[in-house]
């Protein structure tokens, strides 16, 4: 058993690409759920339109990467309007089901073979980010003790984490503003906010757009970092893991999504590495010896999520009073 190397690998993924994408998704969810009380269970849909916005623009139509990011943002706004216009008036449990359903419909549509000319169908799109890696100014990858990444990964990490920090600051500033206070008032008591003359529907829609565009950025960076888009990535579970990240860090807290993503990925990768080591050291029963390790880590994710939301729903950084709502 080489626990040091397991921990080092875990540390690498704690700050790796997955953690960064999930941080962006969770920041978006934090705007929706943490600050506005919207139970958006279709965040992966925003990620999907972000990724395909970039992918289709660049790989299908040959536009520049910047145009692709623009398209991703526009699609994110479009999806928020489409999703929110009919459903924001629904009760929160119905809203949750509808958002899941719409995100899943989007995934089925982009992966279907009639859409192949546009989206690559089940094969997805490749060669999305040639421009991005062409402008890589770095000459060497990061090498900071165990935290070492190849040069291309370092470049995409740099951009993604910068985006994470920028959106965190933006959201923190917005939530301190009068606008953010209205959102929180809506979360606490929608009718009270309405009776004070606030257009609740409009504020909810703005919140949905803001969080959705942040999620779309997560998708866009996913497409760019991997240079590919594939529909099967955008399964409904991604939203659930993003909620796990958010709840772990603490909903309605500024740094919750970032800390949540880092800790989640550290733990997840650590469990995987640990089980893999135990397996190669023959510490496990023989009938468990084949195959990979993901099931154990995901089962623990499920158990951890249940324990967390029952015993510490405010997460690490959250304030329990902020979450005393019955959303």
């Amino acid at each position: 058993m080489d626990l040091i190397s397991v921990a080092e690998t875990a540390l690498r993924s704690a700050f790796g690409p997955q953690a960064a994408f999930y941080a962006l998704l969770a920041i978006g969810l934090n705007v929706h759920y943490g600050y506005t009380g919207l139970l958006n269970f279709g965040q992966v849909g925003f990620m999907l339109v972000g990724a395909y916005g970039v992918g289709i623009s660049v790989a299908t139509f040959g536009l520049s990467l910047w145009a692709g990011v623009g398209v991703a943002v526009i699609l994110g706004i479009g999806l928020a309007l489409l999703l929110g216009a009919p459903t924001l008036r629904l009760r929160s449990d119905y809203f949750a089901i509808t958002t899941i359903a719409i995100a899943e419909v989007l995934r089925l549509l982009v992966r279907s073979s009639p859409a192949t000319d546009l989206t690559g169908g089940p094969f997805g799109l490749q060669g999305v980010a040639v421009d991005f890696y062409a402008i890589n100014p770095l000459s060497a990858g990061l090498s900071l003790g165990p935290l070492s990444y190849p040069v291309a990964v370092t470049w995409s990490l740099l951009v993604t984490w910068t985006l994470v920090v920028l959106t965190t600051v933006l959201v923190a500033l917005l939530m301190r503003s009068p606008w953010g206070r209205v959102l929180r008032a809506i979360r606490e008591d929608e009718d009270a906010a309405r009776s004070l003359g606030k257009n609740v529907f409009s504020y909810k829609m703005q919140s949905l757009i803001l969080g959705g565009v942040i999620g779309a950025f997560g998708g866009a960076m996913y497409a760019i970092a991997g240079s590919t888009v594939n529909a099967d990535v955008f399964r409904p579970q991604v939203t659930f893991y993003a909620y796990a990240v958010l709840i772990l860090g603490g909903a309605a807290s500024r740094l919750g999504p970032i800390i949540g993503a880092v800790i989640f990925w550290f733990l997840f990768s650590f469990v995987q590495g640990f089980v893999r080591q135990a397996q190669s050291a023959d510490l496990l029963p023989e009938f468990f010896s084949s195959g990979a390790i993901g099931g154990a880590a995901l089962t623990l994710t499920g158990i951890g999520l249940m324990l967390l939301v029952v015993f510490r729903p405010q997460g690490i950084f959250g304030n329990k009073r902020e979450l005393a709502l019955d959303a």
Partner: protein
Amino acid sequence: MTRVDEPLDSRRTPPRSLALAVSVALLLGLALTLLPALSAQAATDDLVLAQSEDDEPSPTLLFGTFRNQEGPVEGIEASVSSEDGSLLEAVTTDENGQWEVEVPEGGTYLVTVESLPEGISLRDDEEPTTEASVDEGRRQAVIFRLGEANPTEGFSERAAQQLLSGVRFGLIIAMTAVGLSLVFGTTGLINFAHGEFVVFGAIITWFINVSAGVNLIIATALGVVASGVLGAAVDRALFRPLRRRGLSLFQLLVVTIGLSLTIRFTLLMFYGGSTRRYTDYVGQQQVTLGPLAATPRDLTIMALSIVVLVLVATMLRTSRLGKAMRAVADNRDLAESSGIDVERIIGIVWIVGAGLAGLGGIFYGTSLGVNYFSGFQLLLLMFAGVILGGLGTAYGAMFGSLVVGIITELSVLWFPDEIKFAWALGVLVIVLLFRPQGLLGRRERIG
């Protein structure tokens, strides 16, 4: 119903004899979850968004699954050649209809279907050769669609046949959805883990039937009991204490999501990622009734489903217990003050609901094969059915699910098979917009 050969993310693993171990482990707790996966490639792909920077370079693979409406097709010969036409490797699909070829490097390859077993054909518009591009170190699915068993029949015959498939599918969803609806009606909980109850029943039955070699009918009975026990355990150990704690709706939703992940991936660890079939009642000859053709197995499943649904409906309408369930669903406080033991009724609702879900899962597995991951897909269809019929009403759930099953299968007549579930989910959204109380529901404010 034409099943597209959906790429399975998972590698194949041989069956394991674990029947008893599984039921015991799952029911007694989750201590075993620290053990690693039998075949958890799928699970990893599930979460990891980008290519992970693993220590060892992963092989570059082309893979695929051949299925038709009867399930996976074994014995199809295919070949993979490089772009200039030189043959790299020839493969034959295994009993799961799957094949896999490791190619030397990323690039474009030609995949050709060389020969097909008797009675199997590619779909009319499908070319026998297709190009596939794969990046270095990645896995790329290559998809060929197989045709209907009898592609020459006219539209009305196909429509009748799809209607039959739709009724079969709808009856199965109906059976699974009753529990979802009853639990919501009595406790207000939307159970995201309900799809996992379905899969749990199917997989436990698989272990009893295939690993332990028990006849499927007896295995089904045991599987339904095991599902009911799981439902009872989940209510007793988890949701009853949580009801006392007074959790918020959001917390409860997240608990059911956590439960769903826990059950799903525990099942993956023991069962593996592939789609497998029961040993009994496979490979039956279809019997034809006028324009319709169905296997005796599927006809039996439909008949049994109808009997079970009628029994459940009668139980709800006439028996003391059924009346008590409806009373609790209607108004919990009033039911309690009139002397009904509400917690006991809720416990029974969980047992009945989970048992029905397990039975539905076994029927589903009997006609389409058993895997660990279809729970969530089914859950979304159950939501569609339950909301179409009216959330919280058991009859509504049955009726709505039947409609959803029929819509799903009839859509294949005009639209691609791959997006058939999208129509059902589209119906869900439209119903919520225009008649949110559902077709049979009582008008109340949900907006």
